Every structure is written in structure tokens, then in C-alpha cells.
């Protein structure tokens, strides 16, 4: 029992200690990333404001993340509805293939997508990153939305239909508002995944790097390292915030339908 407890604590330290180092060095005045710390500074954060290349990368990342999140969530709604409302031959097999990117090594996805795109004689760019990110985000969106649809009592939709609504207005007036927490949560999770994805972006980004790709390229310049730390700190805080919001919406939805099917947190 005692050794298990020690193991758990060590495990958590191993997992999170590096992340805690990030803000530590972000506020340290020395340009060398090493102990002992010198003095407190916010200089690196102000330096971030001057890096115009980084701003371009950030904007690029935001564009890609928003588009991928919307695409993945839309596809996820269709898939989750198909699974929870209908049964058709080959349903399990098809779902298996859709969920496969969850376990597929990203490097495989990235390389194969790159080969396909080049063979087709197309140029890589933001659109190809969006395609790759949509591919890996969709399974996450489906997993979240499927639990939202499963928690929805099918007789609610029948009741609306029975009260005179058409299938389309039933979806708009009953289904959509009730799965909305799941949709928001799927959007936020997909956005977060796309935002910090590196491998696919690295292979498919072309001339306009995304933020993670840009950060990787900056590691060659030790002078810029503290600014990278500052940026990393901001990203960690934003990620935690987004995931918290996503979970808040998911739980609120679960409370409303009175049916918590479990989420990622």
C-alpha cells in the first residue's frame, strides 16, 4: 500500500515537473536555462511581442485549429448520430476505421498524407495541415459526442415529432440544444489537439509554419530560448483553461440529462 503511494507520487512528479520548470525559467533573467536561478523578470514576455515571425505562426495555428475543430466536430456529429440512432450492416467495422487514428502513430499518418499529396502533384500548406488535423481530431470529437447522444433519451425526439414537429425542426429544437454541451466540448478538445500538434504540422505545413513547428525551429538559437519558455508558459495556461471549460460544459450537459457517461477528465 505504502509503496503504491510512493509510486503514484513519483509518477506525478515525473509527469509534471518538466512543465513546472517552464514558468520557472520564463521568469528567470538569465539567458542560460540552468540552475541556480538569477532574478525575476518579465522581459521574455515583452520580447515575445517583437517576434513578428512568431505572430504569423500563431495566427496560422489559430486558423488551422479553428477550421480543424469545426470540421472534426461536424463530421463527429454525423458519425455519433449514425451510431446512436441507427444500426446498419458493417456499423462496428466502419466505426473501428473512423476511430483508428486514435492509435495510429502520427508519423505514419503524416508521411502517408505527404506522399499522397505530392503524388497528386499538389502543394502542401495550411489546407493539408487542416486535413491531417481533422483526421486525428475526428475520433476524439466522436467519442465525446457519442456519449452526448447516448445520454439523450430517444423518446425526447419522438415526443417532439409526436407534438407536430418535422424531423428537421425536432433536430433544431430538441436534439441540438441537448447535445450542445457535447458539441462545445468536442470543439474545444479538437482545437487544443490541433493547436499543439507537431508531427503532422511539421511534415505538411509547407512555407507557413504553425506555432509548434516555429518553436522547434527556434530551438537552434539559444538566445531565443527564454522567450520560447515564456510562450510555452502561456500555452500551458491556455490549454488548462480550455480543457477546464470543455469539461465544465460536458458536466453541465450530463447534469441536465441526468446521465453522466464519463468524459476525458
Amino acid at each position, binding site marked *: 500500500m505504502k509503496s503504491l503511494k510512493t509510486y503514484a507520487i513519483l509518477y506525478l512528479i515525473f509527469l509534471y515537473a518538466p512543465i513546472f520548470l517552464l514558468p520557472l525559467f520564463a521568469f528567470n533573467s538569465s539567458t542560460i536555462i540552468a540552475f541556480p536561478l538569477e532574478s525575476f523578470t518579465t522581459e521574455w514576455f515583452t520580447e515575445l511581442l517583437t517576434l513578428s515571425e512568431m505572430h504569423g505562426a500563431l495566427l496560422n495555428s489559430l486558423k488551422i485549429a479553428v477550421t480543424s475543430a469545426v470540421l472534426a466536430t461536424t463530421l463527429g456529429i454525423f458519425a455519433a448520430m449514425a451510431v446512436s440512432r441507427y444500426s446498419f450492416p458493417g456499423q462496428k467495422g466502419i466505426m473501428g476505421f473512423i476511430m483508428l487514428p486514435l492509435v495510429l502513430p502520427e508519423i505514419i499518418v503524416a508521411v502517408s498524407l505527404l506522399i499522397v499529396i505530392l503524388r497528386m502533384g499538389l502543394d502542401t500548406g495550411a489546407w493539408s495541415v487542416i486535413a491531417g488535423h481533422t483526421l486525428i481530431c475526428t475520433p476524439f470529437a466522436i467519442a465525446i459526442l457519442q456519449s452526448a447522444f447516448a445520454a439523450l433519451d430517444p423518446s425526447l425526439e419522438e415526443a417532439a415529432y*409526436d*407534438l407536430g414537429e418535422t424531423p428537421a425542426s425536432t433536430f433544431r*429544437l430538441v436534439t441540438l440544444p441537448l447535445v450542445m454541451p457535447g458539441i462545445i466540448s468536442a470543439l474545444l478538445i479538437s482545437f487544443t489537439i490541433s493547436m499543439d500538434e507537431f508531427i503532422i504540422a511539421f511534415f505538411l505545413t509547407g512555407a507557413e509554419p504553425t506555432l509548434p513547428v516555429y518553436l522547434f525551429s527556434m530551438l537552434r538559437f539559444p538566445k531565443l530560448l527564454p522567450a520560447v519558455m515564456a510562450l510555452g508558459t502561456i500555452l500551458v495556461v491556455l490549454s488548462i483553461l480550455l480543457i477546464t471549460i470543455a469539461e465544465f460544459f460536458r458536466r453541465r450537459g450530463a447534469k441536465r440529462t441526468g446521465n453522466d457517461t464519463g468524459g476525458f477528465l
Partner: protein
Amino acid sequence: MADMTADKPLISLQNVNKHYGDYHALRGINLDIRQGEFFSLLGPSGCGKTTLLRTIAGFEDYDTGSVMISDRDMRGVPANKRPTNMVFQSYAIFPHLSVIENVAFGLRKASMSKSEKMRAAEAALEMVGLKGYGHRAAHALSGGQRQRVALARALVLKPKVLLLDEPLSALDRKMREQMQVELIKLQREVGITFILVTHDQEEALVMSDRIAVMFEGEIAQCDDPEVLYRKPNSKRVADFIGVMNFLPATVRKEGETYLAEIAGLGETEITEAQCPGGVPVGEATVGFRPETLTLLYEGQSATHREAPAVVDEVVYYGDMTYYDVRFEGVEKPVRISMRNIFGRDVLGVGTQVRVSWSPGALVVFDQSA
């Protein structure tokens, strides 16, 4: 008004059949339901009663036959275009809307002003005893309140038929009994035809004008509660509605009369009226209800016939006592219900008793029935 429409049924089902793959869910259903009737579909789970209700509602298709509502063929008419409304087993209250928004939901497309809609919804809420609950959140209501909101939401549209799918099964016993009485009152008040699906025979007997008992996709018997209880047309219906004792018997014809030799009770004359499936000459089963038998106390004598027995089990209910007794030469115990009249002792297990029974209360079934 009832006289004018009495000869013409509001709902008429003719030879309705439905399959789920190889499974024959509805077998040749013929059913006429009159305007203003409280009608129940009763049967064990899986007998097709909910499928039949959903067929009338328009949620299920059927393979052959016809469903008519108010002389209109319902084939191809979807649920949202039918003059029926449904109260679902789970109540299906929209959790993201307030109580009044739930009730007014069906009025969305009605050609009335917003204030008229609100007034209609308020009136419906008042009818089900939820006046002033309009602005509460629907997901904060208790089971009984949800049930009432579901009723108000369906009734506000003034449907020709209200369909109720096991509406009381989720409530506790006290609440259920209270709602049974309220539903009967409500039905009389609004005069709308109610079709109730239930697996609870007591509930069906209490509430209905007529009951259709279903087994395996077929209607076994359709009658008013009293006939169903007193004259079940098969052993199976008899066994499903209330408690029925069965004893083996042999029937023979002697001249113009039929005589039944009943195990433990002796020989008695029976009439054709007591045999719903025709007189089963030869091997037969007789059935009788617990309350048609009486234990005789010291000094009492039988009004009709009596037979000796031994008390096998005693179940005390306060107002009633159920005795399981064994007649001479019969292995299977027979249940007798006795009212606990003041001053009358509850008998113990093993007591030798005399049981009074009347031949007229017997129902005679085919052995195989």
C-alpha cells in the same frame, strides 16, 4: 352525443400484422375503440402491446391490415400528422425548457397569438393540478410532476386519442394509486379517448372501460373488466387477471345436462354458460376465484356445497387473510381469501376446515387451454 357515435368506432384496426425480421410481433389484430372510451392494452412484457400502441401513434409501420382513425386510413400518415398524442414511459419532458415551454411546445405551429398559447398552456397545467408551476425548470420536477406535465403537454393539443405507454410504472405505489384515480377523473372531464398500455392487471381493472389482453402478439380477449375477471375465455387469461385457482376435472354428458367430476370437490352440474370455449367433454380444468370460496367456522353451514380441507399456508394482510388449503386427494393447494371480520380468529397452519363453494362460480376450461 355518445349515442350518435356509439355504432361507429373512433379507431378501427383490421387484421394488422407486423414482423421484426422473423419475429411476428403483431398477429392479425382486430380492434374497435369507441369515442370517449378508456381502453387498456394489457399483457406481459414482450406481448406486443407497446408495438400496437406505437402503431396507432404512427411510430411503427405495419406489414398488412389497416388502421383507421375517424374513418381515415392512417397508412403513410406520420406521427406528427396524426390526431393522436402520446405520454411516454419516460415522460420525455424536454430538460432544457421550462414547464410552461414544455406544455406549449406542441402549440408552436398553431394559428393563435402568443398570449393565447400561453393561456391554453396555463389552462392545461391547471387541469393537471400544476397551476403556478409554469416557470420552474423541467429537470427539477419530481416523477409525479413530470407525469402531469407530460399529460398537460399532450392534452393541450386536444387530440382525438391520448396514448399512454406505461405512464405509472415509474411511480411508487402510493403515487401510482393516486394518479390512477386522477387519470380516470381527467379522462371523464376532457372526454378524450385514452388508450393505456400496462402490464399491471390491477391497474387495468381499476381504470379501464374495456381491456384487451394480449399474449405473443395476439389479442386473447377484449372485454370490460368485470367480464374479463368473471368470465375469462381461456386458462391463460384467467391466470393473468387476478388470482385463479385451477383443479383438474372430468366432464361427461348425461341426457341434456353436463356433469363435472372435480378433484377434491366432487361432482356437480355445469352449464354451457360456464364454459367460454364450449363444453369440454372429457378431460377439463375448472377455475375459481379465491373470494368465491369461504372457510366455514363452527356452527356455520354451506349455502351451496362444502368440502373438507387442511390449511397449508396462512398469509395475513390486515384487512384480509389468504389461506392456501389442500382438498382431500389433491396435491396442489387452493387459495381462499377471507375478510378479517371483527371477532373472527385467524386459523393456524394444519387446521382441519370445511370449505364452502358454489358450482355457479366455476369456469370450465379445455384441459389444453
